[in-house]
Every structure is written in structure tokens, then in C-alpha cells.
């Protein structure tokens, strides 16, 4: 498959992570580290169940529920045990590593010829185009659901929780429950990314979740840069930009590889790229003073 088409497809696979981080950032104002573990959790369940000849469409609800439970656990540890949200995420992520390894039985599960959603659903004769189309439809559905959710009364309350906790409690919202639910939704989305990626690359690997939170964070930060630049208030545009961020991120990585940078340095490039995006607005702001 073409280098940049792969980047586009990977970006779409990561849209769940990006949307998940967007939600957890909105309700917590901090990145949710559970992401690394719940992404892998989605991948582990997908690989294992597909290998046990479960059809891809019955695997999806399992993945969603597993991700939601992981997120809810982080939420419960944070709100009920009053542990810092970052630490709560790290704890669950660490525990999930063992759980994922237990589910998979070994560290790598190749899917070989087992059918995935990318060949179960036929939207185009060309397999590459088919993969892209299936993903586009999939991501469109997820985005529509999340967009609708954020516009409902519940969604407004969720967005307000990270913004002004005192206000939202005074307006009758149980913020603990809101955080647990929000994290459950965020991590369910992340697990769906693991589900998509495992099927796209044709294997589940225990290390595929490492650094996933940075991918999501990078996507959201790219989106926030545009949101702040153009003072965007529309939910739909914001979500679109988050997806755009996820894709741009993959393009930058593809470009880096294309330029001949050693693949072992990819995580370093990722970290530097995120640092650049975070610091750019501040650097240019200082100059204008």
C-alpha cells in the first residue's frame, strides 16, 4: 500500500484514541494515561477472539465494554480513593499490561488469513480502497455519535465538569459519576482504535499500546491550535479538527520515515513533534510582545 495512504488509514484507526483523549481532556484537563493500556486491551481482545473464530462484528461490543470498564476503573480510583488522576491512569495502565498478556497468552498474535472487518465488508473491489472506505464509514459513525452526545444536556454537563467543578456541582451534577462515565466513554473509544488497528495490521502485539497517549494528545493539541486560532466554538468542527489532527500526526511520521530517518528514532520524533506543537503558540506569542 502507498506510504501516505497507509498514514491516512493509520490516522483514521487512531481517531478513537484522539476522540477519547479529547473527551478525557475536556472532563479532566489532564491526559488520561489509561489510554496505553485500554488501546492494547482492545487489540488483545480483538486478536484473541478473532483467532477463536468469533466474527469481527461480535468482537466490537466486547472491545467497547472492556475499554469502558478500564476507563471506569481509573475514574473510580481517582474519585472514590482520591488519588491523583495521572497516577490512577498509570496504575490501571500498568495492571492492564498483565491482563492483556493473560488474555493473549503470548506477546504476539498474528491473524494471518482470518477475516477482518476490512474484508468482511465490501464497499469497493480494490482492497486498499475498501479498507479506506470501511474506515471512513466507521469513523463517521463514531464521530456522529460522539458529536451528538456532546451536544446533549448530558454532554454539556460533561464539558462543564473539567471547566468549573464548583459550578457544575451547584447545578446538580454528581461530578464523581460524571468523571467515571466520561473516562469509560473515552477508553471505550480508545479500545475501538485498538480493535481497528489490530485488524488493519493483521496482528496484535503486546507493545502496540506504548506511547499511544502521546498520539492522542498530539492529535488533540493540533486540533486545539486550530480551535484557538480560528476561535472555533462548534462541536462538529472541533471533532473534525481532532480527526484531522490524528491524520496529520501520522503524515508527519510517514514524512519522517520517507526522509530516511531511522525507524528506531520514531518515538523520539513523535515526542519532539508534540513538544513543538505545544510550544509553538507560546514561542510566537512571545515574539509579538
Amino acid at each position: 500500500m502507498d506510504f501516505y495512504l497507509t498514514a491516512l488509514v493509520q490516522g483514521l484507526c487512531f481517531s478513537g484514541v484522539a476522540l477519547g483523549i479529547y473527551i478525557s481532556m475536556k472532563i479532566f484537563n489532564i491526559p488520561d494515561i489509561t489510554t496505553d493500556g485500554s488501546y492494547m486491551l482492545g487489540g488483545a481482545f480483538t486478536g484473541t477472539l478473532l483467532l477463536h473464530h468469533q466474527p469481527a462484528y461480535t468482537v466490537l461490543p466486547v472491545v467497547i465494554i472492556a475499554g469502558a470498564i478500564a476507563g471506569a476503573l481509573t475514574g473510580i480510583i481517582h474519585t472514590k480513593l482520591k488519588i491523583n488522576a495521572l497516577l490512577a491512569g498509570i496504575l490501571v495502565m500498568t495492571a492492564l499490561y498483565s491482563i492483556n498478556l493473560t488474555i493473549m497468552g503470548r506477546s504476539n498474535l498474528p491473524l494471518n488469513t482470518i477475516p477482518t472487518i476490512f474484508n468482511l465488508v465490501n464497499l469497493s473491489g480494490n482492497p486498499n480502497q475498501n479498507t479506506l472506505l470501511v474506515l471512513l464509514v466507521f469513523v463517521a459513525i463514531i464521530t456522529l455519535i460522539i458529536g451528538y452526545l456532546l451536544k446533549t444536556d448530558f454532554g454539556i454537563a460533561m464539558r462543564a465538569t473539567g471547566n468549573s467543578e464548583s459550578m457544575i456541582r451547584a447545578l446538580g451534577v454528581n461530578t464523581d459519576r460524571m468523571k467515571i462515565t466520561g473516562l469509560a466513554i473515552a477508553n471505550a473509544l480508545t479500545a475501538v482504535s485498538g480493535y481497528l488497528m489490530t485488524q488493519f495490521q493483521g496482528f496484535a502485539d503486546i507493545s502496540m499500546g506504548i506511547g499511544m497517549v502521546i498520539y492522542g494528545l498530539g492529535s488533540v493539541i493540533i486540533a486545539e491550535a486550530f480551535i484557538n486560532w480560528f476561535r472555533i466554538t462548534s462541536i462538529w468542527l472541533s471533532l473534525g479538527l481532532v480527526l484531522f489532527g490524528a491524520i496529520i500526526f501520522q503524515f508527519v511520521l510517514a514524512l519522517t520515515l520517507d526522509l530516511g530517518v531511522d525507524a528506531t528514532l520514531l518515538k523520539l520524533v513523535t515526542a519532539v513533534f508534540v513538544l513543538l506543537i505545544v510550544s509553538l503558540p507560546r514561542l510566537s506569542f512571545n515574539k509579538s510582545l
Partner: protein
Amino acid sequence: MISIDKAYKIYNKGKANQVDAVNGISLDIKDNEFVVIVGSNGSGKTTLLNLISGSVLPTSGSITIDGNDVSNLPDYKRSQWIARVFQNPLSGTASDLSILDNFRLAAIRTQPKGLTIGINDAFKKQVTEKIATLGMGLENKINQPMGTLSGGQRQALTLLMSIMDDCKILLLDEPTAALDPRSATIVMKTADQLIKDFKLTAILITHNLKDAYNYGNRIIQMVEGLILQDLDTAKKSALKQNDLFDWFG
């Protein structure tokens, strides 16, 4: 409306840094009473207000609202009776959300926040009309994020938000402390008007003795977690502004 019976709030009990924030207060506030609470810093005013709102729960003693024992009810459940305006304008509104979103949440303060979209044209119209009554020119900006407004504008909107849904009690914790004198006057006048129009039971904490003199029909002075003076309507109207200054002399 509000009845407090021997309420204590003691922080760090038994330790060297024990603080008796509220030290056994009993207080009855009737319907439509507008109580002004004054007192020095650390006298327990805000803790008393937080005990009523449920932001802190009493160490001992009981609190009754509208005939219901709410002593152990958290703040988000007491919101069915109580609306609040905070000292910090940032606490009462969500900066990243639009004015409209903020009002939507306020309009369903006493109801569950469900999975339906509640903002429609009728609601927008209702909010626009409400905001127009402030005369601040904000009615055309309902889609702007709350964070783009000044502290005074946000406090005025917070006040309006309190009456978007059924409201019995309005708690005002130094609502004008962070505002310039002109905004402060607008906010206090709006509050007074709303309290009269909607027959609210209200409690105002203030350090501004002029406001304490001008507003309300009952005044309480707190000292070291206890009520030192409690003047009812007749006694408060007989009070002179200078007498108030003498309380702090």
C-alpha cells in the same frame, strides 16, 4: 425555609491545628427572608454558607431545608432548592462553554441531565430575552464562550442563571468582592430585584458595610464561628450605618 440546629464544623479535630470554623450555630431563616451576614475574615461566614449549600458537611448538628433533613446530602443534591453565586466569577460559570450552554445547564439545575438536545430555538429566544433585561448588550453574544466576558458580566449572568430553574434559596458569597464599583452596584441591584421578584429566600455574605446596610431585611454578625448579633427587620431598619461600622471597631 432553612433551619440549622447546633451545627459544628471542626477541621483537623484533636490536632494542633484544629479550627472551629462553625462552633455550634442554631439559626432559623424564614421564607422570603434576605439575610446579610457580616464578620471578619475567619469568622466562619463562608463555612456557614457551605454548610447550607452542602459543599461541606457538618461535623455534628443538623440542617433542614424546606422541611427536609439535608444534613448529609451532598451539594449536587441540594441544588434542587439552592442556587449559588460565588465570590470568584470563574467558579459560577464554565469559561469554555458558550453563554447559551451555561444557561442550558442552569435551566435544568433541578432535573437530570439526559441524552436529549435541549437547546432549540425556543430556548435560545428565552435566554436572549432574559439576558436583554440586564441591559448589558449581551443578548447578541449568546454563542460566545463565557470566558470572553468580564467578571462583572459573568456575575450578573450567574445571577440570572439562578432563576432559570425553580429556585427557593439564593446563596451569595461576596458576589461583588472581585468587581469594580460600577459592576458591583449593577450586580447587587440585580440580585435585590430578583430576590424580590421571585420571592427568594436569600443569604448574602459581604464585607461591604454599605451593601450590608442597604440590602436585606435581617442582619447577622459572626465572630469566631458563632452568631454575635442577629437583628430582625424592625431592628435592622432602625440600625444606622455608623452603628454597623462600630461593630467592627
